[in-house]
Every structure is written in structure tokens, then in C-alpha cells.
């Protein structure tokens, strides 16, 4: 249970950062934190008590002794996606800083209404 709570808390912290922090780099960090939270949540629901990684690395391992492999596979993909988004976000931050000479999101609002 604490795993769930922690992951959700992580998500909330990330969201708080995104919603409140003014520095766009911090916002990007917030996005990463959200991602981490979600990924952890994935892993958490796949976990089975006292089970091992789903690899038949040694003989005698039974299917029943392993954790659910699907969330892990999904998380693998999700991480990569998160990475890609972060990369694009950071590149945008670089561009924004180039143009605006600031990282304060309140100053970057030329497009409105």
C-alpha cells in the first residue's frame, strides 16, 4: 500500500511543480517526476510478493515464482517515451531561453487571447 501512496505522492509532487513553479526547467523536471511516479505505479501493480524477475535464468524456476512481466515491458516503453518528451522539452527550453532570455514562464506569454 505504501508503494501506491508513494507513487501517487510522486505524481502529485510533479504536478505541483508543473503547476506552480515559475522556472520552466523546474517545470520540465516536474514532468519527469510525474513520469517517474506513473512508472513506479506500474511496477507496483505488477509486483507479486516474494517473486523474482521474470527471467528463466536458472533451471527450476516456475511461472508462479515470477512477478507480472507485462507492466515491466510497458514501463520500458513508457520510460523511453518520457525520455523523448523530456528531450524535446529541454530543447524547447533552450530555444525559449534563446529568444526570451528568461526562464520565467510568466514572461513567456506573448500568445494569448
Amino acid at each position, binding site marked *: 500500500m505504501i508503494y501506491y501512496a508513494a507513487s501517487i505522492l510522486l505524481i502529485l509532487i510533479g504536478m505541483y511543480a*508543473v503547476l506552480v513553479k515559475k522556472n520552466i526547467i523546474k*517545470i520540465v523536471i516536474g514532468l519527469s517526476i510525474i513520469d517517474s511516479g506513473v512508472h513506479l505505479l506500474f511496477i507496483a501493480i505488477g509486483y507479486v510478493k516474494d517473486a523474482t524477475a521474470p527471467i528463466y535464468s536458472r533451471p527450476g524456476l516456475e511461472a508462479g515464482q515470477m512477478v507480472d512481466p507485462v507492466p515491466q515491458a510497458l514501463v520500458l516503453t513508457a520510460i523511453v517515451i518520457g525520455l523523448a518528451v523530456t528531450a524535446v522539452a529541454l530543447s524547447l527550453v533552450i530555444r525559449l531561453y534563446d529568444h526570451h532570455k528568461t526562464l520565467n514562464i510568466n514572461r513567456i*506569454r506573448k500568445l*494569448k*487571447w
Partner: protein
Amino acid sequence: MVSLTTLYEITFGGAILAFIAQHTIKQLRTFIVIVTSALGVYIVWRLPSQATDISFRLGDFQILWGVNEYSQLFALLIAVLGFFTLIYSIDFMKERERLGYFYMNFLIVIGGMYGIVYSQDLISLFFFWEIMTWSSFMLVIYCCDDAQSIGLKYFVFSAIGAYAMLTAIVLIWANLETTSLSVLFENFTNLSSGLQITVIVLFIVGFGVKSAMMPFHVWAPDAYAISPTPFTALFSGALSKMGIWGLGIVLLKLAAQSGFYVWVQDIVAWIGAITALLATFYAIVQTDAKKLLAYSSIGQLGYIIVGLAIGTPLSIMSALFLAMLHGIFKAMLFMSAGAVFYRTGSTDMNEVTGLIRKMPWTFLTALFGIITVAGVPPLGGFAAKWMLYEATIQSGHYFLVIVLFAASTAAFLYLYRFIFSLFLGQEEKEYADIKEAPLTMTVPMVIMALFTLVVGVFPGIFINPIGNAMGYFGNYTFNWDVSSLLNEWGNHVDMMTVVMTIGAIFIIAAIFITIKNYRTTRYVTTKDIHTSGEIPTENENLTYAVDFYKPFERAIAPVLKRSIDKTYNLIAENLESAFDFLRYVYTGNGQTYALYVVLFLAVLMVFAELIFGIQL
């Protein structure tokens, strides 16, 4: 073999060809346009004897096109007016640019109108209705700088009307699962009474906008005034009649079946009468001839609406009679104003003056036009007015008839001003070199002018086909003599006698006054006038045109002060600023947007718990 499809193909095809020709072989363009419209006249003429109904499925709808007497009446008006206005436009538009655009849209308007009157189902009706609307919009904004706001106003009002109509169509579809007009007529009483009245009101609004019914008329004066004159003639002459066509169907086919008929009749008739009166007042204070005529159109359409709303055989007859006739005389008047514009470059009544001796044929057309509008015998207008008054009185709308009379008397004011300012009065030097308009313009005008005289003598040539057309609404018979008018109390007017009398006396008096002292009668210029002993100098202004009806304006000042147009503008402005306020939701701050997202989510979650009472 002619059929409706050939009619549409030729008209719309001609439109596209004209556009292409403009960009390839310019000489062909006029030829194509004239041939197309002439073919249109021919086909429409032959249609009743040869055409069969055309029916096919389009999506979920059964499309039905067919010819009936009622449609035929309007189609002929469209075809003939289209033909004349196009001939007129040859020289009128010669110097303008973007003629391909002009002619294409012109023919599309004509095609759209054919489509409207020949549709037997609501979908194709709406389809062609909208085609007509946008192509006419294109023509309204053809010319000048301020055309854009005027065009926009026109289109917005048209759209409100069209969408009212669409709502009605949609309601009918939802409840009767049909779009066919005939099925609708049969099953209309199956609708609940609330729905009946809704549908009727929506349709009346829809058609009322096009027929410039108050309070939806505000687009009309400007739009009429600003569009190129050949099109204005068609616009006022034929296009506005599409609204009348529809109102006829709604009032006489639908409303007549509902329990609210009496109410609908009274309200619409009063709206029509007030339209007529106010439009006339506004026409009186105009200074631009086309605008004046535009308001006059609105007024005349008001009469027609009254006639349709009253719904007795005589009133329907008068309405349709006036509708047909209005098509002709208003086209004449616009054409003569256009001819003046063509030669002088202006239709400002404070400026242009004394053209009678320069443009006699144009003047003649204008004269016949105003006499017809005024409803003075012996021209055709009298028959229409006469029938309308008789019908209004005899159906018990006593106060209505007063309003109509007032409007029609006041109409003399603007009519006189129109012809006086442009053609009579002082002949000024700057217009000394004006010549008569070219033949392509005068010939259609004069033909139509003579036609009003013929109708005046033999109203039967209109009454009999209209009587047939009224068969669409029920059993009405008009077995009148070709030259007589008859009311429901049995009183009649014999137009033949009237015209013979007038003609005889007129000719005798004219001969008398001409030959008496023929030699010693001499012409003097308009500068050589009685001015109480003062000899006017060369540059003294003797033209009386500005504020021609100042006293009358003072008398009706309270009416003029309140303008519906201003009210609409106020509403529009307020709405726009309200919209402006709304878009501040988009603050431009990405974080705020993100906050909206979370807010949305949180609200949904709370709502979900409230609504579904979820146990968590």
C-alpha cells in the same frame, strides 16, 4: 425535350462557362450569358407541358423536383427578369473589372432561384436557398469599400433566416421523418400544436428575412443600394420574391391547417403593414435614389405580405399580382436609376438634376414606374392596390387598411422626389453633355414600361395565370373578364372603360394644348424663370433638392428617431465585447492551461461522486 435537369445544367453550366470565358476568350462571355438566360426563358416557358417530376435519393433524403403552376409563375418572373437585367448589364457593366466573377454569380443566383421554386422537398429547397444566398452575397460585395460591412449584414441576416428555416426542417424531419413538401402538407396536423406554431414561426422568419419583413429588413436598403444595378433590379425584383413564394406556402398551406391561423394571419398582416408604412417613411428621407428605391421595395413587399396573410382569394390574388408586377416595375425603376448612374456617375438626388431632356426614354420608364408604384390608374399598379384594399376591407381588417392607405399616400412623396430630383428641376451645366443610355439599357426598360400599361388595361393577363397558380392552395376560381376587377361585395371596376376615358381625354387635351398657339409657344431654359423680378445670376443655385421633405421629416421625427438598425448594432457590439471577455480564458500562460486541465479533472471526479454516489 426540356426538363428541369437541363434547366439547371444550362444555367449553372453557363455560369461556369462565363467565368472561364472571361479568362480565356472575353468576347464569348457576353454571348454565353445572354444565350444562357434566353434558353432559361425558353425552357421555363416550355416546362409545364413537357417536364416530368425528377426524383432521386441523396443521402437519406428523397429529392423531388417538379413543376406546378405556383412555381411556374415565379419561375417565369425569374427567367424574364433575369434575361432583361442581363441584357441591361451588357453595357452597364462594360467598363467594370472582374466580369467573370460578376456573371458567374449572376447566373448562379438565377439558377438558385429556379431551384427554389421547382423544389418539392425541403432539402433541395434549402440547398438552392443557400446557393442563392451566397451567390447574391458575392454580388452585393462586388463593388465598393463599405460593401464589406453591408454584405456581412446581409449575409448574417440571411443566415439567421436560413437557419430558422433549417431548424424548422430539422424539426419536421425529427417528427415526421419526411422532407417532402406534399407529405408535410398532408401530415402537418399530426404534429403537436406547439410544434406546429414553432415550425410556422420559424418558416415565417426564414422567408421573412428574404422578403425584408420588419424587423429583419435592416440588411435590405444598404444591400440593394450597394450591389451593381443590374443585379439590384433582379435582387429586388425576383430574389425578394423567393421570400414571398415561401411565405405563400407557409401561410396558406401550413398555417391554414393549424389552430393558430387567425393569430398568425393577424400578426403577419400587421407586420407587413407596419413594414410598408415605416419603409415608406424611411424612403422619404433618403437622399440616394437607389436607397430610396430599396426602401420602396421593402414597402411594396410589406403590401404583398399583407395580401398573403389576409388569405382571402382576392387578397392572395392581389398579393401575387403585386409580386409579379413589383418584379417588373421595381426592375424598371432600378434600371432607370442605373441608367442615370451610368451616364452621370451618381444617384445622389441632391446632385443629379434635370435629365429629362437628355434621357427621355429613361425618364419615360421612370415615369411609368412611379405611376405603377403609386397605384394610379391606368397602369397595372392600380389593379393590385385596388384588389388589396378591397380584400383588406372586406375581410374586416379595418385599421390595417388605414395603415396601408397611409403608406401608399406617403409613397407619393418619395416617388415624386425620385423623379423630380433626377429628371426634373433645373438643368445644370455639368450635365449638359449627358446622352441617353445605350440601346441595350433602354430597350429592356421601355419594353417593361409598356408592359405595365398593358397590364393596366388588361389585368386579366396576370389574373388568369395567377388564378391557375392559386389552384396550388385550393379551389379558387377567377372567371373575370380580361379587363375587369371584381371585389367580394360585387363592386367592380372596368379597366377598359377607365383607360379609354383617360386616354381619350388625355389625347384631346394634349392635342388642344399643343396645337393652340403652336407657333407662338416657345421653349425657354429653366434658368429663365419667374423669380419675383430678380434676375438669377449664372451661378445662382435654383435647384431645390436638399431636404426636400423637411417639413414632413419634422412631422414624422419621432418615428425616424428610433432605428431598428441602431438597436441591432448595439446588440452586436455588446455581444462582441462579451465574446471578447470570454476569450480572456486563454491567458497565454501554459501553466494556467495546465491548471484548467487539473481543474477539469477534479471537477469531473467530484461530479462523478455526486452523481453516481460512488462508495470509495
